[in-house]
Each structure stands twice: as structure tokens, then as C-alpha cells.
């Protein structure tokens, strides 16, 4: 007790005397506050009441123009154009139904739509402008503005509307916009957003929303009881969003999409610069037109898109996973050479089929290829050669080399939702199915059928590494982000993801084979010959079976219903020596790679070479 109260000393009265003084001081300060309040509220109350009623403050949020998205040559892909909208402030409008009817008549908009847009504002919303018609042209605006004097509480303003220059072109990649949802607003990261703000919902629009959106401004207007603007009290200018420059080349993107659209193909095209990992084109079809979402998406259209069995919202280039077909054979070839199971001269006889136990695995060429070495096997895509080699290697060694090329893992592109694909191993099968891996599975995998799944982007990235001599780059789509005045905020450099642990000699042999696919007699990629400027390309076809190989038979795909037809692959790079572009094409249910996918790839490569040679006279 004593220890606790060591400081307890009898007071000499100082504190007590002071406390009385303090009490008096506190009471007088309080009286002063109260007097001031009495003056403000009771004496001057009516004056302030008038200022509050007659001159109320109307706060308007001013949206910032969203930044543009440009391709690598400065071609604008997405920008914002000014559009006009009409708003009604409920609190300032005497007869709302009559006003809405009037606006509907003046703008030519459906009355029901105007009423729906106005909604049922209550509470605080009654003091804030409600949008009743948006995206008006100048004529409609002019007719509203001419009557504005008679319409209390009605105002017009300019709001930027997003414009996707080329409609559905690169739609998956660019993304789309929507209004920020109430559930998002509760989260911390969206604290700078307000209900009704526009936010990126997909692609680049979503990824770089904070850069693109800029900072919304606001203005406080002094308005009288009739909503007439008396004075601008304060104005915070909106800060326009930043511009984003992509590595994309719109000319190539357009070529890829036009080629797919020509026969309404479903599929994807990826073009990369093998020297940097830059994405030059990234197309996915079917697509959608994000312009439809720019001013608030119609629920009907949205339902149509999400329920469409062809999944137009899916970005097939990085979300579609397909068996690689014969494009896989490079993995088997590299594994065989590296593991020294074969060399350039090892010969194998192909009689059109290969027997393992009681099952027969057919080569795509029924009569067989005769005696083939590695080069010929690649050029003519001989299945039997790779059946045998794959069986000797075993699935785990195949998986090791597939992974070393970056397959079965994300390539690192900035866009969300990239799929990792799948590279099967014995352990994987055991884990997933609980059944052991059998040799027959290895045979299928060795020619790219069976459990392997790759995205078109992965295939392009893997072939880039083969083409550039063994360096794996992270695929990337962003070149730089700039302020509206052109100051660079961030720029993105190529990033090396790793080196392929394979000898230069091995890669040279594989590349020679791929060049042969295009340029030698009986090559499956003959469509890539005769390129502009005499450039020689290299490539590989692939046909991925949708119906399993259970029968061990290869069925002619034309006899099947569309959804059972094979997927067609073609991957190519050009020039064959020192390549500057890699293009991977997948056509869903397209049949043979050489005939369905190669023409698409050819268009892209031709456009690329024309651009380089200066003979392409596009935009």
C-alpha cells in the first residue's frame, strides 16, 4: 500500500485553489461557445436558412477520361470519346414524372428506359444527380439544352465513353468495362471508387485499371431552389488516365483475326518475338464487341455471351488447353538426342503401324514412311519413329524435356487467367486416377496425344526457345505506361525465364527438321513456302485427337460430327535462320493442321514480312 502511494502527499491547497479557477475558465469558454452558437443559429438562423435553402451545393463527380491503349507502333486501339448525358436531381425537380416524360420526348429515348435509369432514389440520392439518358449525340443534346430553362433540376454533362476502335479485335486482351459493384466497394482496394464508377472488368482494362482510370474530379456548384446554377464553388479537375503501350502489332492481330474469321473458325493465334518474348498478336475466336459494354452492358447480351456453348468470353490463346498433337514431336526428338538414344543417323523402319503387346498403333500414313532418320521423321511427321523413341525414353524423361521447354507451366503473361496446361508423369497418373501408367500411354504421349495439354501461348513460347537457341523468355504484352503528356511512368524490359538445358547441337538438328517440314519434299508444312522477300520459314503441323485413341485407330476426321473432329495446330517461325517471329495457331475441330491452321499462320507471317519489307500499305 505504501509502495503504491509513494507519491501521495498531503496537498498544501495549491491544487484545490487552482481547480476552482480552472472550473470558472471552463464554464466561461463554454458560455462563449454557446453564445456563438446562439448567434449563428438563433440570431442569424433565418439568414443561414435562406442560404441553405436557396443556395444549396450540388456536388457533381467529373469522370476522368480513361487512358488510351496503343499498339507497338502507336496505333490507338482503345480510347475515350466525349458523350453527353442528361441527369435529374430529384430534390430540385418539382414534378419528376412530367420531367422524365419531357426528357424522353426531347431525346427520343424510350420513356420506360428513362424511368428505369432514374430508378427510385431515396435518402441522400435525392440530392444527387441521377443519370436518365446517356451517350446522346449533339442534336439530342441541343434539343434538351434549348429547353433546360424550363426544366428545373435537369442538367447535362459530358462524360467520356470508351471506344474500342476495332470492335471485336483483340477484345479478350483489351478487356471491357462495367460499373463497379456494391460488393466490390466494401473492399479496401476499391476505396477510391464510388457507386456508378466505371471499372475495368477484363483484360488490360482490368489489369491496369488504376493506371488507365486517372483520378475523377468533382465540382461543387451553388444552385438555387430551382436547380439553377448560380456559381461554381470549387472545382477539382479530373486527372486523365495514363496511356498503355502494348507490344502488340495491330496489323498482325488483324491478319490473324481476319484469317480465323474467313471461315468462322473457332480458335486462337499467338505471335511472339522469339528474341524478347513480346506478344505481337494474341487472337481468340469467337469474340465479342466490348463497345457494347462501354455504357453499361445489357443483361440480355451478357447472358447470351455467358451461356454461349462456344464460350466467346474465353481467351483461348491462354485459357484454352489442347493436346499438342504432332507439335509435341520436338520434345520427343530433343529427349532422344539428349539422352543419346538416337543420333542424326539412327534409322527406324515405318511400315505404317507399330505393335505393342496386343495393340496396334497406326502411323498417319497407312502405307508407312519406309526407313526414316530423325530429320525425315520430323519433316514427314512419322508417328512410328516417335512411338518407338518415346517408348524407350519413358514418360518421365519426356516430361522432363517438355518442362524444360516451359511446357506445363504459365508463360508469365501479364493477363489474368492464364492456364498452366499439363505435362503428365507416372506419378501424376497415380495421384489422379490411382492407376499405374502403362507403356501404351507413353506411346500416345510421344506423338502428342493422350494426357498432354498446352495452351497456344505455351506452344508459341516453347517454339520461341527452340528458335532462338534455347532461351526462354517470359511472354509479355506491356511495353510501357505513359502519362498523357508522354512521360514514361513504367517501361517493361524482356525477362529471361530460364535457359533450356539442351545442347546447341540438339537444337540445331531439331531446327533443321522444322525447316525441312516447310521446305523439303513431302514436308507437311509446304503452305509456308514462297514467302515475301524469299524468306524461308520453319514449322510443325499438329492434329490433336478429340476422340481418344482407345481403338488405336486413326479415324478420318471428316466423317465425324464437328465436336468430335480433331483440333488443328500449326506452329511456325521465320526466317528459319535468326527468327524474328513465331506464330502458333490452333483451330478447334479444324481437322488437319497442315490444311486448317497453316493458312492462318501464313497470313500472319506474310503480314509481318510485308511490314518489315515496307510493302504492307495498311493503316
Amino acid at each position, binding site marked *: 500500500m505504501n509502495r*503504491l502511494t509513494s507519491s*501521495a502527499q498531503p496537498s498544501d491547497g495549491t491544487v484545490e485553489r487552482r*481547480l476552482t479557477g480552472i472550473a470558472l475558465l*471552463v464554464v466561461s469558454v*463554454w458560455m462563449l461557445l454557446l453564445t456563438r452558437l446562439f448567434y449563428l443559429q438563433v440570431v442569424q438562423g433565418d439568414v*443561414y436558412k435562406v442560404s*441553405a435553402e436557396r443556395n444549396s451545393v450540388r456536388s457533381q463527380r467529373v469522370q476522368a477520361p480513361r487512358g488510351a491503349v496503343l499498339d507497338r507502333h502507336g496505333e490507338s486501339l482503345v480510347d475515350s470519346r466525349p458523350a453527353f448525358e442528361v441527369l435529374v436531381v430529384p430534390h430540385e425537380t418539382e414534378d419528376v414524372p412530367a420531367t422524365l416524360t419531357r426528357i424522353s420526348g426531347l431525346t427520343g429515348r424510350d420513356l420506360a428506359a428513362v424511368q428505369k435509369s432514374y430508378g427510385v432514389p431515396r435518402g441522400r440520392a435525392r*440530392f444527387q444527380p441521377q443519370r436518365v439518358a446517356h451517350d446522346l449525340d449533339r442534336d439530342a443534346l441541343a434539343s434538351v439544352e434549348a429547353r433546360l430553362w424550363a426544366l428545373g433540376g435537369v442538367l447535362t454533362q459530358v462524360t467520356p465513353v470508351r471506344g474500342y476502335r476495332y470492335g471485336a479485335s483483340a477484345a479478350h486482351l483489351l478487356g471491357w468495362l462495367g460499373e463497379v459493384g456494391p460488393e466490390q466497394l466494401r473492399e479496401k482496394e476499391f476505396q477510391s471508387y464510388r457507386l456508378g464508377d466505371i471499372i475495368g472488368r477484363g483484360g488490360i482494362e482490368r489489369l491496369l485499371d488504376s493506371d488507365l482510370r486517372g483520378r475523377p474530379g468533382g465540382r461543387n456548384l451553388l444552385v438555387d431552389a430551382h436547380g439553377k446554377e448560380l456559381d461554381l*464553388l470549387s472545382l477539382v479537375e479530373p486527372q486523365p488516365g495514363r496511356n498503355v503501350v502494348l507490344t502488340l502489332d495491330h496489323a498482325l492481330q488483324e491478319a490473324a483475326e481476319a484469317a480465323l474469321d474467313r471461315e468462322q473458325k473457332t480458335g486462337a493465334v499467338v505471335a511472339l518475338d522469339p528474341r524478347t518474348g513480346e506478344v505481337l498478336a494474341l487472337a481468340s475466336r469467337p469474340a465479342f464487341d466490348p463497345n457494347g459494354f462501354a455504357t453499361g452492358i445489357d443483361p440480355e447480351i451478357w447472358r447470351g455471351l455467358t451461356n454461349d456453348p462456344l464460350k466467346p468470353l474465353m481467351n483461348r490463346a491462354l485459357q484454352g488447353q489442347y493436346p499438342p498433337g504432332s507439335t509435341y514431336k520436338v520434345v520427343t526428338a530433343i529427349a532422344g538426342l539428349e539422352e543419346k538414344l538416337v543420333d542424326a543417323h539412327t534409322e527406324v523402319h515405318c511400315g505404317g503401324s507399330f505393335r505393342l503387346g496386343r495393340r496396334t498403333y497406326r502411323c498417319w500414313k497407312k502405307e508407312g514412311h519406309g526407313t526414316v532418320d530423325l530429320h525425315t521423321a520430323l519433316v514427314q511427321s512419322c508417328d512410328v519413329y516417335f512411338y518407338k523413341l518415346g517408348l524407350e525414353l519413358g514418360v518421365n524423361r519426356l516430361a522432363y524435356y517438355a518442362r524444360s521447354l516451359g511446357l506445363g507451366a504459365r508463360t508469365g503473361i501479364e493477363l489474368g487467367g492464364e492456364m498452366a496446361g499439363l505435362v503428365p508423369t507416372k506419378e501424376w497418373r497415380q495421384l489422379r486416377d490411382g492407376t499405374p501408367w502403362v507403356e501404351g500411354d507413353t506411346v500416345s504421349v510421344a506423338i502428342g496425344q493422350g494426357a498432354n495439354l498446352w495452351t497456344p501461348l505455351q506452344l508459341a513460347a516453347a517454339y520461341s526457345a527452340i528458335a532462338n537457341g534455347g532461351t526462354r523468355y517470359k511472354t509479355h504484352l506491356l511495353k510501357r505506361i505513359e502519362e498523357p503528356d508522354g512521360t514514361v511512368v513504367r517501361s517493361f524490359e524482356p525477362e529471361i525465364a530460364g535457359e533450356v538445358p539442351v545442347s546447341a547441337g540438339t537444337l540445331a538438328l531439331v531446327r533443321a527438321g522444322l525447316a525441312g517440314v516447310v521446305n523439303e519434299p513431302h514436308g507437311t508444312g509446304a503452305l509456308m513456302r514462297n514467302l515475301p522477300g524469299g524468306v524461308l520459314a520453319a514449322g510443325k503441323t499438329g492434329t490433336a485427337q478429340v476422340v481418344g485413341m482407345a481403338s488405336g485407330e486413326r479415324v478420318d476426321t471428316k466423317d465425324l460430327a464437328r465436336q468430335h473432329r480433331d483440333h488443328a495446330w500449326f506452329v511456325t517461325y521465320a526466317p528459319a535462320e535468326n527468327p524474328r517471329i513465331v506464330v502458333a495457331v490452333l483451330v478447334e475441330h479444324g481437322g488437319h493442321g497442315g490444311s486448317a491452321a497453316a493458312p492462318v499462320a501464313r497470313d500472319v507471317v506474310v503480314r509481318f514480312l510485308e511490314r518489315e519489307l515496307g510493302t504492307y500499305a495498311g493503316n
Partner: protein
Amino acid sequence: MQGIDRRLIQNFEWPLFTMAVLVAGIGIVNLVSASPEQTTGLPDTAWRQLVWLGIGIVLLFATLVPDYRTLERFALPFYAAVVVLLVAVLLGGRIVNGSQRWLDLGPLNLQPSELAKLAMIVLFARLLARRGASAPVGLRDLIVPGILIAIPAALIVKQPDLGTTLILCVVSGSFLAVTRVRVFSFLLLAAIAVGAAAVAWLFFLHDYQKERVFTFLNPERDPLGAAYHAIQSQIAVGSGGLFGKGFGQGSQSQLDFLPEQQTDFVFSVLGEEWGFVGVAVVLALYLGILIRGLMIAHSSKDLFGSYLAVGIVALFFWAGVINIGMVIGVLPVVGVPLPMLSYGGSALLTCMIALGLLMNVSMRRYVF
């Protein structure tokens, strides 16, 4: 010795507790109106404040359990812990609206600058009690306390949180009112204060803060910019008249003309919607709390208890004066929340703990 004595329950500090709960209750009702419209139920902010109030009342009762004199021993460790927390905030605190004031503790955010106020009060009460009341205070006696204020004040001004720094300094300075200060010392102290203000002006204040002072001194300077809040806030309060416009009916409050109407400008919502009558009731309750606090200081049987009570009264007094003075246009715009009315968990908890300490001193005035 310690624990809940029967006499403690008999001596429960009903007047203070009742007035505090009334003010906090008015605060929550007022927040419902000051918060953004929600389609159903109570607004989020009001809900959260209600939860904080519940926690605050539990803490208040917890504060009653130990004898307040135990606190004297913990004055220094408490102070040291608060300084550590303030450093932690500057190193890794959460940034909101450009200020780094909060420590992210998972579900809740702690604002250590609020705790700093309590720590300062407890520490000064102890220092003064050790000296005794009769010893005259010379300048040299102020060096150590000066440094003790300067450390947390510098850390808080760096966040930047000018309002809390100001409160910390004036509350600490208020202890001079209950000591015997030599006239010469007092004059020199005033000179130092002016000098410190000049240094702060030149090196620490942000442009927007200087702008507010200029605006206060000369409102015509920039009526559309920095004076805008002051003018709009006066219109809001003034237009409330004698009886106010009624709950949720304030056109000024319902417009987002004040960005801080749930926190620093919450009093203007009260003034507009409840009028002079409502404001007078709240001011009377506040005054009741202050006077009751001074009575507790008076009746405390030891110096530490008296000084503790004086410090807590000073905390409520200054926060009230600075905030209300700002809202009604007699003081410059400084971000000081109004105790128990402004939205904010840490601030409310600090108030409840401080009230708990006051009640603790009151209830143990016979226990000797």
C-alpha cells in the same frame, strides 16, 4: 487490497457514467444521419461505432478494477511502449488519405497516437505528483517534460497528424495550470512556444495546413478554396435555427459538401438537424463531464489522482473547444475529432478508458 470492494460498488460514479453514455448515444444517432445512405438497416459506420462503443464500455469497466495508483508504476513503461508503437506506425503503418496513422492488426486498426494522449497524461501526473504540489516550477524543471512531449509529438507530426500533435501539446501544457510556475519562467516559456510555432511553421507544416491558418485569419482570401469548409459548415449549423431541421433532414449534411462530416465536422450535422436546442443539450452534457471531472480531481485523496483527473479533463476540454470552435468558425480548420461524437474506434476507446480512469479515481476517494 485490490479487486472489487463493496464500497467501490456503492461509490459507483453514476453521474459521469450516465452523461458519457448519453453523449455517446447521441453520437451514434447523429452518425446514422451523417453516413452515406444505405438501402437496409443501419449504415456501416454507425454499426461499427456501436460495436466500438460496446467494446469501449467493457474496457471502461475493466479500467475500474485495478486501483488507479497501480498505474503510477506503469507510467514509464506505458510511455515507452507508445513511443515504440509510434515508430512502428511510421515504419509500417497503413496509409489512409495520405496520412500514416494506423497499425494494421488484422481485423482492427490501432491508432497509437490516441494511446499517446493517455500515456502523456499518466506520465505527467506521476512526474508532478512525485514533485509535490508546493515545489515551485522553474524553467530547468521543464526541460525533461519538454523532451518527453517532444518525442511523441515529433513522431505524430510526421504522420502527419497536426490535430493530435496539437492536442498532445496543449493537454501536457495544461498541467502548468495546477503547478506553481514562476512568472519569469512562464514568460520565457511563452517565448519558447512562439519560437517553436515559428519553427513548426517554417519546417513542418504542409502548404495546405498553412493555407488553413491564412484562411482563418482572412476568410475572404480564398472563399472558394480553403475557406469553403468553414463557410459551408457555418451555413449548416446556422440554418439549423432554434429547433433544427429534424433527423436526416439537413440538406447541407445530406449533400456531400463536407468530406469529413462523419469525423471532424460531425458537429455541423448535429447543429443543422437538431438546432440550438440539441447543440445546447450536448454542450451541457460535455460541460457536466468536465465539471464532474474537476470535482473528482478536487476530492481525490492523493496528488496523482488529482493530476490524472486534471489531465483527462484537459483532454476533453481542448478536443471539444478546438473541434467546435472550428465548426462554428472561431478557430482554424484543424483535424481534431470531437470526443464521443466523431466516428473513429481508437478515439472512442481512448475516451472510454479515460472516463474509466476518472471514475476509478472518483470511486477510490474513500478507500484509504
